[in-house]
């Protein structure tokens, strides 16, 4: 998976401007998109060509006269730390102070790769961002050399300044105008070798940390857009239910209410404050027709899924079987910031502000929903309060645009938490049947058949919109988006347990089925690996047990990849695998490989009360290639550990007669402080490889380790998740 980023893919060019402005093409990710090579060739131009234009399809760096380095990032910050990682890459190559680097989020563009997902951001930006900054540095140094009439090679850069041997210095800001006119730098414009890195690889505090702790970080709901009034929607009790009759007289007569409009998903109320909007919403008298799933509950969905799992083939003759079936419930993304979008739709143009992983698709879908040409729709990308895949879809933004159009005024739409849980997207429920065949102490065949719920589109109204991230839209960059979502099918049909064959398990096979239901689904952090690989890691433990082997020793002898063995050894060593624990406590381990990265997780659980287990300690080790910000990587692993604990032990959604039962964090039991480990350690393996992906990597290993620890502590065989539900 480690790919070599060749320099020619990132030919950097300069934009005609009065300040130094350089741009690097940012095409599709070479690892996932077919034809990326061709696209890169088409974009190739000599580095000294001046081009006028916008920042479409580019990563653009500008050095301002105020001595700020500004890179408008075609990605979204949702907590994963991408702005900090990119600021570090830029600061590294420019020798700028991190505080002088600003990374605003780019508005939706018309071309290029503006996709945040698939744990691809750092790997797709690592080459272009450094090339860009290295060229800017070379031009700034050359400009200073000309000003001082000194040989450029004698000059150094540090702290956002060029420094001469005689002690003179000039800020980048003071050099930017003259650097903009430099066409042929007199010093190398190549990025530094890794051995010279002083910022990349150094644990660094988030660039937005101070704003966050002071309450100054701005999310969509905090924006003040002229006239945009608080808006909420009354929604049906069941998924996909429809309003049959609406009596809005009482609501309209309430103080502070500006508009009541019917939309496909329910009835929207626009008011002076969210209090007024919620109060008027509750005064609406609506008769709802039940949605298409109304008779369906969990038990029926589970049995339909079980029936949809393809049959396993015949095991090798003479082998002994370890077989297991697993069930995973629906899980909400439930980001802390509920879906929020500000929309100002006029007769001839529209402007929308919200947090989006796929703003280019969002613009196209919004334009089509409100009947305007795409060129008349401006989408501003705002930082998000968490995502976990939720902001791949833009349901709320489309809804806000439709309400703004109908109400003829700007609106600030916010989904309530109950809206988010009861009508939002969820990780599909799934059923897995796994069989390991062993003979003479070895696994000779491994097969995994599964079925998951897939979304039936035609039965839905507005909630069926905003799905282009799932591969329905045409357009640039779709290879990436589709790569993320179609992976389910590709992986299920391909060899398992992983595409590369994580274990030496002889003949590896898999198959998948589906149950189509009209419910809103979405890619959830680590997508299908979060269930499939978790189930497989449980089976690996059960095979080890039936062969009389230790789970770590068994993995060590059957894993194919040395780098996976290395992370396993790291956690086994660091957490003292096999140490004596009190009765009811146990350790559990699991590994995972994806996105060009590897991870191992070892947990200790206190399951003395099996209905109220506590993971007391988590130790993870990851090899992600170059870790741009080890502190950010540790945070991603920590978050993945909590996701594993939550989805295995506690957090899921029930479906009762076509409705989601849960309505807040009171019943959607995502982990709180008392469920989090008292000790967490992340070990980051040193590497000079290009960065792999990290944001989703840890989830399957953490979930598998928690399940395995629970099994060992309780002597049970966990089969249905979450366990306490």
């Amino acid at each position: 998976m480690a790919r070599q980023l060749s320099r020619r893919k990132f030919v950097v060019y300069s934009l005609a401007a009065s300040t130094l402005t350089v741009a690097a093409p940012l095409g599709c990710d070479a690892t996932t998109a077919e034809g990326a090579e061709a696209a890169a060739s088409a974009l190739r131009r000599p580095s000294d060509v001046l081009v006028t234009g916008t920042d479409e399809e580019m990563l653009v760096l500008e050095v301002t006269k105020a001595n700020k380095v500004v890179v408008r990032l075609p990605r979204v910050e949702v907590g994963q730390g991408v702005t900090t990682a990119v600021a570090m890459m830029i600061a590294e190559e420019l020798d700028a102070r991190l505080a002088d680097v600003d990374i605003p989020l780019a508005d939706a563009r018309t071309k290029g790769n503006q996709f945040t997902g698939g744990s691809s951001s750092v790997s797709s930006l690592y080459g272009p961002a450094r090339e860009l900054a290295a060229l800017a540095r070379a031009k700034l140094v050359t400009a200073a050399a000309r000003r001082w009439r000194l040989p450029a090679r004698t000059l150094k850069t540090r702290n956002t300044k060029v420094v001469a041997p005689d002690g003179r210095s000039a800020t980048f800001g003071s050099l930017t105008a003259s650097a903009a006119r430099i066409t042929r730098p007199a010093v190398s414009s190549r990025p530094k070798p890794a051995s010279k890195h002083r910022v990349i690889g150094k644990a660094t505090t988030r660039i937005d940390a101070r704003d966050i702790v002071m309450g100054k970080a701005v999310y969509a709901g905090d924006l003040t857009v002229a006239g945009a009034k608080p808006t909420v929607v009354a929604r049906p009790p069941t998924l996909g239910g429809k309003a049959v009759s609406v009596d809005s007289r009482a609501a309209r007569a309430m103080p502070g209410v500006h508009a009541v409009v019917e939309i496909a998903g329910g009835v929207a109320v626009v008011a002076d404050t969210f209090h007024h909007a919620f109060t008027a919403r509750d005064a609406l008298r609506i008769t709802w027709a039940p949605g298409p799933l109304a008779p369906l509950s969990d038990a029926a969905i589970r049995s339909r899924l079980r029936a949809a799992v393809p049959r396993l083939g015949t095991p090798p003759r003479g082998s002994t079987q370890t077989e297991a079936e697993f069930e995973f419930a629906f899980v909400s993304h439930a980001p802390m910031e509920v879906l929020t979008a500000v929309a100002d739709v006029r007769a001839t143009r529209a402007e929308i502000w919200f947090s989006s992983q796929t703003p280019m698709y969002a613009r196209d879908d919004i334009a089509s929903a409100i009947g305007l040409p795409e060129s008349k729709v401006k989408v501003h990308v705002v930082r998000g309060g968490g995502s976990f895949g939720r902001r791949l879809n833009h349901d709320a933004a489309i809804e806000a645009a439709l309400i703004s159009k109908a109400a003829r005024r700007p609106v600030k739409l916010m989904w309530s938490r109950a809206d988010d849980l009861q009508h939002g997207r969820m990780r599909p429920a799934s059923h897995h049947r796994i069989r390991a065949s062993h003979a003479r102490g070895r696994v000779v065949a491994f097969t995994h058949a599964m079925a998951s719920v897939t979304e039936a589109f035609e039965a839905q109204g507005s909630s069926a919109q905003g799905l282009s991230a799932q591969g329905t839209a045409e357009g640039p960059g779709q290879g990436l988006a589709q790569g993320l979502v179609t992976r389910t099918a590709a992986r299920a049909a391909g060899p398992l347990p992983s595409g590369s064959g994580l274990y030496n398990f002889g003949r590896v096979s898999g198959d998948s089925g589906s149950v189509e239901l009209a419910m809103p689904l979405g890619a959830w952090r680590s997508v299908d690996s979060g269930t499939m690989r978790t189930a497989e890691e449980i089976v690996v433990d059960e095979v080890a047990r039936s062969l009389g082997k230790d789970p770590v020793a068994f993995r060590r002898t059957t894993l194919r990849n040395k780098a996976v063995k290395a992370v396993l050894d790291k956690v086994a060593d660091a957490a003292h695998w096999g140490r004596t624990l009190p009765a009811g406590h146990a350790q559990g381990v699991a590994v995972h490989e994806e996105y060009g990265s590897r991870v191992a997780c070892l947990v200790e659980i206190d399951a003395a009360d099996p209905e109220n287990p506590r993971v007391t300690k988590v130790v993870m080790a990851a090899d992600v290639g170059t870790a741009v910000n080890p502190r950010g990587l540790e945070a991603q692993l920590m978050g993945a550990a909590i996701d594993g604990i939550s989805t295995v032990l506690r957090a899921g959604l029930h479906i009762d007669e076509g409705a989601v039962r849960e309505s807040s964090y009171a019943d959607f039991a995502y982990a709180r402080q008392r469920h989090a480990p008292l000790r967490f350690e992340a070990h980051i393996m040193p590497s000079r490889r290009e960065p792999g992906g990290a944001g989703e990597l840890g989830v399957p290993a953490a979930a598998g380790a928690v399940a395995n620890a629970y099994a060992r502590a309780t002597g049970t065989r966990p089969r249905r998740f979450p366990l306490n539900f």
Partner: protein
Amino acid sequence: MPSYSFVLNGKPVTVEAPSDMPLLWVLRDMLEVTGPKYGCGVGVCRACTSHLDGEDVQPCVVPVADCAGREVTTIEGLADGDELHPVQRAWLDRDVAQCGFCQPGQIMAAAALLKKTTHPTDADIDRIENVCRCGTYCRIREAIKKAAAQG
């Protein structure tokens, strides 16, 4: 429309609002104080946690009428000008935040805990109910201990 006066982050304010209007929306939609976040509206996620007369409360379930004549402190009022509160400093030191959305509430909850219990135990910290969907709990625990150690 009834009118309510209270002290917000050290300054007197007066608002005309329905008596049952939750403090959260008074702060966010009338006074443009957006540090306290909406996460559930029913007092369970605690993203809006702020202080009322120094005690931690959830403004999403506190009617504005209950605040009359009292002191409300939000995350915006925790620091002393540019001088961060020890809990904020500890949060920076441990680089606690990920998406940041719950952190104003987490910080206000931690500050209230430390006011009552200068050296909280793990069991004390476990009683903090604030949800962090990014899962920053381990760093929150470390930051609280660090802030406690620095008094």
